[in-house]
């Protein structure tokens, strides 16, 4: 890397062309108010014109037929705001392109989640209202395209987060794409620049649901960057937006800078350094920097000194927002309340959001100067984040069917591994299998022992189905995905045998925390990338796997073998050998179970017995054609119809329903706790439910006298919990029914649907 700053040097034609070829980013600054000249200078110095000319020559298309697309940051909710790219600069860029013969220019963005909550958020209309006039100051007409329309398939690979996703034809078929981002902070990611602006290329409207919760923004932005990038990147830092509300409200600061270059990551790198930030501070940038990286050789031309007076988002706020936004329901519930909006141009579609926004803007805005607002917001975010994680932990233990699947890409490059690496997996596992086979079995058949802190074990079960029939329905290559509590991931075959069967395979597997109750203590999902070797013999099929990475550090070992073997009397023996070591949450690390081996051993035997019995049950279900996977899929049509009011209602229904079930379940079995501590006696049943669903209670329970004795105390708590559970569940059910009736009665237009 080289950084050059200071005096301008007149470049010779030779050095100029050299400059164009080298990966570089240009930072230019002015003391004047002329933003248009500054843009021109940035383009010149960044070698934009030779770059686009070369692209046109390669395409073999004359200038007037060469389609240029500009993707600005359209996150604006009023005129003269600084949360998005300045429309005047975009129109000036169009004029400059026309001057050079590029007359076919379109400005484009995809629909956003704001369409659910606000009127006039349709892309062309929104553009018009925030200052795009469809004709430049010099009379050049241009169009504004909606990147959610005319979506065409894009060949995202099977290992990609965006597999199966399309992108608008306008973007895909543009001969040259310019990503024109705003220089701004972002309350969750620290900053939002060129890379994050690529989220606006993706077609689905509810970007939070699809690209923040269902998929992850760092995965999808990296995918677009790799598969369908912009050829040139600009950051409008003439008037920047800084402070804690970079995306939420205008807090302009005159930085009078323009940053430009062909490489989006390098442009973001320079722009984030100018903010005084670690370029890895944004999870979106960090992922791309690690997966794609900066150019091998690059040059930063210009001054990297941070902007004076610049305010970044406090890490406490970012962390709290991140936790809040982990929940699709809570994130979307609160988002419209916290956005500064010009209501005349973008009125709220419903009165509730309108009022909530008015109140939130009064108390929770300007948080850089409003300490009370700052801490209230942080507290609210953490509260919602805590509610979400608690409900998720509860669902992991008691209602797995309510969990959402994890749609995740493969997080390593299969090309980095050769055939020998796959074969080595078998060579690694076979000696371990011998060790465990010669270990005495528990009474229930489980064999297990410790090895370097990991647990090595084997479990086998005979299934009364002929081998051939069994393997025709239960694919050995899918065995790892059939393991208990698999909640998502990605899988891609690498090599096949002559019969077309998979022999080498890569997988990313995400499982629920193991054992599940660890989730109540903050235990994380097990997320492991694996190499797999599969062999097919006469009467036997085997898959060997070995973990090669765990992106969240949840597993040190997760290796194994699944064997399907023909057994006499038309039966199939399923044998699972595995070596596992998962990270424990801090609480259990502090407890250090190694010091109490009897308890630890009992827990190990219990946990693995449950795990493998359920896994075998999954194989049986698969054989019988029954659904066995835990969780439920995401709604791929979410946000494409309906309104924000519906989404808010869903969030509330989800919350009530979850609270109801949590209270109805054994999240905190207080009565049992009282009994085990000897404070309460075992109580008689508190309630019975008749055929009509009515609950009948013993009138003596819960009364003052009863509460004083042990049975009454336990009964009181159980009674109260049952009642509360019933209340929340019934309210949620009633709301759900009302919503269905309402949706059936309301015409589309009533919901603000397109």
């Amino acid at each position: 890397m080289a950084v050059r700053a200071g005096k301008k040097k007149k470049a010779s034609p030779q050095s100029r062309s050299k400059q164009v070829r080298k990966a570089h980013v240009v930072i230019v600054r002015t003391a004047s108010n002329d933003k248009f000249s500054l843009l021109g200078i940035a383009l010149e110095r960044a070698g934009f014109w030779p770059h686009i000319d070369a692209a046109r020559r390669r395409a073999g298309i004359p200038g007037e037929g060469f389609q240029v697309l500009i993707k600005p940051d359209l996150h604006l909710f009023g005129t003269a705001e600084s949360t998005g790219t300045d429309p005047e600069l975009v129109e000036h860029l169009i004029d400059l392109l026309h001057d050079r013969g590029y007359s076919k220019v379109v400005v484009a963005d995809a629909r956003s989640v704001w369409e659910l909550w606000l009127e006039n958020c349709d892309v062309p209309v929104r553009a018009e209202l925030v200052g795009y006039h469809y004709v430049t100051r010099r009379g050049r007409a241009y169009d504004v395209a909606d990147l959610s329309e005319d979506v065409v398939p894009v060949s995202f690979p099977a290992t990609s987060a965006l597999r199966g996703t399309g992108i608008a034809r306008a973007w895909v078929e543009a001969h040259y794409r310019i990503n024109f981002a705003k220089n701004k902070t972002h309350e969750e990611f620290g900053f939002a620049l060129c890379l994050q602006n690529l989220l606006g290329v993706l077609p689905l409207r509810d970007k939070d649901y699809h690209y923040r919760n269902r998929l992850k923004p760092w995965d999808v932005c990296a995918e677009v960057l790799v598969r369908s990038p912009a050829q040139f990147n600009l950051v409008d830092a003439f008037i920047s937006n800084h402070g804690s509300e970079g995306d939420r409200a205008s807090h302009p600061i005159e930085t009078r800078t323009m940053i430009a270059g062909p490489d989006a990551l390098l442009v973001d790198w320079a722009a984030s350094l100018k903010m005084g930030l670690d370029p890895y501070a944004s999870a979106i940038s960090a992922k791309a920097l690690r997966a794609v990286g900066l150019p091998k050789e690059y040059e930063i031309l210009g001054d990297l000194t941070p902007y004076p007076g610049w305010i970044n988002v406090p890490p406490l706020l970012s962390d709290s927002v991140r936790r809040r936004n982990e929940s699709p329901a809570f994130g979307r519930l609160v988002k419209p309340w916290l956005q500064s909006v010009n209501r005349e141009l973008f009125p709220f579609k419903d009165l509730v959001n309108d009022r909530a926004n008015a109140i939130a803007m009064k108390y929770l805005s300007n948080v850089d100067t409003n300490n009370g607002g700052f801490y209230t917001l942080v507290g609210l975010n953490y509260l919602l984040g805590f509610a979400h994680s608690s409900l998720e932990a509860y669902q992991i233990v008691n209602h797995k069917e309510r969990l959402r699947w994890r749609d995740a890409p493969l997080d390593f490059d299969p090309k980095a591994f050769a055939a020998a690496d796959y074969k080595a997996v078998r060579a690694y596992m076979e000696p371990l299998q011998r060790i465990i086979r010669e270990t005495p079995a528990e009474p229930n058949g489980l064999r297990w022992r410790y090895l370097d802190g990991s647990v090595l074990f084997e479990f086998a079960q005979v299934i009364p189905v002929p081998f051939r029939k069994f393997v025709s329905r239960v694919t050995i290559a899918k065995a790892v995905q059939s393991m208990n509590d698999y909640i998502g991931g990605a899988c891609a075959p690498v090599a096949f045998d002559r019969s077309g069967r998979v022999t080498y395979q890569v997988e990313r597997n995400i499982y629920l925390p193991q054992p599940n109750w660890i989730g109540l203590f903050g235990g994380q999902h097990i997320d492991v990338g694996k190499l797999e070797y599969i062999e097919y013999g006469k009467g036997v099929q085997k898959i060997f796997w070995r973990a090669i990475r765990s992106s969240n550090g949840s597993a040190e070992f997760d290796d194994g073998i699944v064997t399907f073997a023909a057994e006499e009397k038309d039966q199939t023996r399923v044998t699972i050998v595995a070596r596992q070591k998962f990270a424990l949450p801090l609480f259990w690390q502090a407890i250090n179970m190694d010091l109490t081996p009897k308890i630890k051993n009992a827990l190990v035997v219990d946990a693995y017995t449950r795990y493998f019995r359920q896994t075998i049950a999954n194989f049986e279900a698969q054989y019988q054609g029954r659904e066995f996977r835990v969780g439920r899929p995401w709604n791929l049509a979410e946000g494409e119809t309906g309104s924000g009011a519906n989404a808010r209602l869903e969030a509330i229904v989800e919350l009530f329903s979850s609270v109801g079930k949590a209270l109805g379940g054994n999240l905190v079995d207080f009565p049992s706790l009282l009994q085990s501590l000897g404070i309460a006696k075992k109580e008689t049943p508190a309630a019975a439910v008749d055929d009509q669903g009515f609950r009948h209670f013993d009138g003596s329970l819960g009364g003052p006298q009863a509460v004083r004795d042990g049975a009454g105390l336990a009964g009181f708590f159980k009674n109260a919990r049952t009642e509360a559970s019933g209340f929340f569940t019934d309210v949620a059910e009633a709301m759900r029914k009302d919503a269905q009736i309402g949706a059936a009665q309301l015409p589309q237009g009533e919901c603000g649907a397109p």
Partner: protein
Amino acid sequence: MRISSVSVLKHPRESVWVAIRDRLPEVVLLLDDIESVTVESRKELPDGTVDLVNIWKAKPKLPAIVTGYIKTEMLAWTDRAEYRPRSYECVWRMEPHFLAERIRCSGVTRYEPAMGGRGTRVTFEGDLVLSLQNLAGVPSILEGPLANAVELFVVALVPKNFRKLLEAAGTLLSSAPGSPPGGKARAG
């Protein structure tokens, strides 16, 4: 209280202007909660100004609990509008058929070219005055809060309905021969 709203239609100003002025009875057929608009009088002045008096009848979906108290005349109003072609402005006054002496609502709607001449920006501005003093059956202590609540509701409702009207006009224009490519026009 001031009422305002901005909408953008993806149709040229002239078509939108003519549709709202001359084809209102057709436009409202596309609205679920308007029963009819009847032109009571129409006068064209030499300078091109058109004076229109329309009678609107609504048929909103109301909760069952209030339907017994709402009479037909409560859901009708006279709309007196003056369409000024030079400035593409419509100066209007609404006279409700119920509590007419307590509700005054008037304003102006401006039609401006948008989207480089391919669209129309419609700005709706008005003033609403509610006088709910001495309303039968309402204790005086509640008059203020009631007026505030009604104003809040009306201030949100009137622009919303106007946007729906424009949306319907856009749909009507899109269905007409020679409508813009893409067909589906929306009032934002």
